[in-house]
């Protein structure tokens, strides 16, 4: 695409209803924000309606890729943040099976985990 500073790119977002998040649907080139809205309507909403449409000059968007250190790290190194990080299932089973009191469980836990 050739650079046309007089016809900038607008990113188009739509909200299906008042409570949904705005979702990116594509982009259009237009000489003004209002024209961008008019063209987005015909480019992306010919067969469906929208509660709201946002157009944002692509140049106003700050990209994380341009500031690499801000990008989130790969999720596998954060396994401890996932719900599976704490395996409480067996302890609960034991608690129910032996009619333990909550104090027993606490004692057991302080002696170190045992399955």
């Amino acid at each position: 695409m050739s650079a046309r500073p007089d016809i900038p790119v607008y990113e188009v977002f739509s909200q299906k209803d008042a409570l949904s998040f705005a979702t990116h649907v594509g982009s259009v080139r237009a000489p003004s924000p209002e024209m961008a809205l008019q063209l987005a309507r015909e480019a992306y909403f010919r067969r469906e309606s929208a509660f709201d449409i946002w157009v944002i000059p692509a140049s106003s968007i700050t990209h994380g890729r341009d500031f690499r250190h801000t990008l989130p790290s790969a999720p596998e190194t954060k396994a401890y943040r996932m719900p599976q990080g704490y395996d409480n299932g067996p302890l609960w089973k034991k608690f129910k099976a032996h009619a333990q009191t909550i104090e027993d469980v606490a004692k057991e836990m302080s002696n170190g985990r045992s399955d």
Partner: protein
Amino acid sequence: MKHPTTIQITALKSLILAMADDEWMMGDRGATWLALTPDLEEDLAMSSISQDEIGHAALLYTLLEELGEPGADTMVYERGPENWHHAVIAQHPTHSWAEWVVRRYCYEVFDDIRRKALARIPYPPLIASLKKMDAEESYHLLHFRSLMSMLARGGPLSRSYVDTAILADWPLLADLFEWGGRDEAWVLWDAGQLAPSAMRSAFDLVVQRDLIAWELEWPGPVRVADRAARHHDNSKTLPELLQHMREVRHIALAGNW
């Protein structure tokens, strides 16, 4: 109008037919811009707008069918040139993008005035159809107004294109405001807005205001049409246009399209 009289039905048909044929022709002419507009986005918008117009024509031909006329397919693909009653401007060939924008802007301003006038006729199916059209048509008007404003303010070159286009189109606007049928057609209803002179002055008012706002020269009021308005019996170009429009259809006339 619970039980329209024969005179009222004839009148109603001539009012609806003028609009149906305008919409069809504008849609058909608009479709020829496919892949030729200045950019991809406008191409999508223009083809969508043209589909809207053809959809509106279909809606109006259906109204006519309910009033005893042949169906939409017959009206579009089999009617002789002498029975078409669109305004001359709707079928006129376009030479430039600016000319098309000026023409469509004028047509949309006019169409807005005409829809409001027609809505005064107490015929529920017509009012329901006009309501369906309104949402799309108000977008058309907005869009062509934006394009006009852009061309007018786009520098000396684009401005000169608009100036030329306005001067070229002005003399062709006259018969838009006529109804094609007999005078009684609109006199029957107590709606002064339906009178060609009323529609013309409403149009002049809006367009003059817009052109002044865009710092364009207003060429003065639209002239009054002659008696042959919206009649194409002697047109040299219409038979050719209709033939071109029907070319594909006529490959297999009896076919189920």
